[in-house]
């Protein structure tokens, strides 16, 4: 696969004292992380601990209620143009239009993200990576959920960007598609790319681990006496509402 082999001049993606409040609930606070170019960071933690929230915060969908996010030296603000040139985000939904074929979906995604059309043969290679080459011209509404998930993973090839944000990427993948994804990710890291993956599945690619739960433990101090409720009541309140 003649993946364009130029390497990224990517920088370190780091978060400092990040906190996020969603729907009035403090999801996590005081969270720090740093991912150097060529490194992979796994996000661990039980459901609702904020793995997906952290990914959406980095992607610029959520405002951080405290702390800041840096790419190299410049601080990323939500909705920055620079941010949208640098990362690809794959969430739980696959973002595919069921009325259109896989080819149409992929071409549209490539043009929306890069502004340039994608050559038919390169598209075929990318589809083959996940065994979807034969399905290119079939409307997505006939795809199984596994096929749809693999189709959504193609976005990492369609938009050649340094930072990958992956939310449970290996869900519903069979053995050879897992290896395909692993080689894809390893290749991306070798080119100096950065990956953050919210997943417990090691996928066979070396990476550091950040346990989002531990960052949570500071926020929800659990002890028995009534005082705990006050701490918790005050702590979970937006600082603005606290009664000191």
């Amino acid at each position, binding site marked *: 696969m003649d993946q364009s082999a130029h390497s990224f001049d990517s920088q370190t993606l780091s978060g400092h004292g990040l906190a996020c409040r969603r729907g009035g609930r403090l999801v996590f606070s005081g969270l720090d992380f740093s991912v150097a170019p060529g490194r992979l960071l796994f996000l661990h933690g039980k459901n609702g601990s904020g793995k997906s929230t952290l990914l959406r915060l980095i992607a610029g969908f959520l405002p951080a209620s405290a702390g800041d996010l840096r790419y190299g030296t410049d601080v990323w603000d939500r909705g920055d143009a620079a941010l949208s040139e640098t990362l690809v985000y794959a969430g739980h939904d696959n973002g595919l239009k069921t009325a259109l074929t896989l080819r149409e979906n992929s071409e549209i995604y490539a043009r929306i993200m890069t502004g340039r059309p994608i050559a038919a043969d390169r598209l075929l290679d990318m589809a083959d990576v996940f065994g979807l080459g034969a399905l290119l011209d079939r409307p997505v509404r006939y795809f199984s959920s596994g096929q749809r998930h693999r189709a959504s993973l193609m976005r990492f090839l369609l938009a050649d960007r340094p930072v990958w944000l992956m939310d449970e990427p290996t869900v519903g993948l069979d053995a050879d598609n897992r290896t395909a994804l692993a080689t894809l990710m390893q290749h991306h890291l070798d080119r100096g790319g950065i990956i953050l993956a919210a997943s417990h599945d090691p996928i066979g690619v070396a990476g550091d681990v950040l346990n989002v739960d531990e960052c949570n433990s500071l926020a929800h101090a659990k002890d028995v006496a*009534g*005082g705990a*409720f*006050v701490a918790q*009541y005050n702590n979970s309140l937006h600082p603005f509402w606290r009664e000191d």
Partner: protein
Amino acid sequence: MAEFLDMGGYAVFVWAAYGLCAAALVGLALHSLKAGKQARDRVEALRPRRRKGA
């Protein structure tokens, strides 16, 4: 007095206008006070009692 109440024949309209205004404004004020008190009591109930000794 009767002549005043008559409002030169427009009694119905004038008193209806003043009456509706009074009813609406007083009603809104009372509702705001009652709901306010209710909300305040529920916040008090939720916030832990500061025991005298504690």
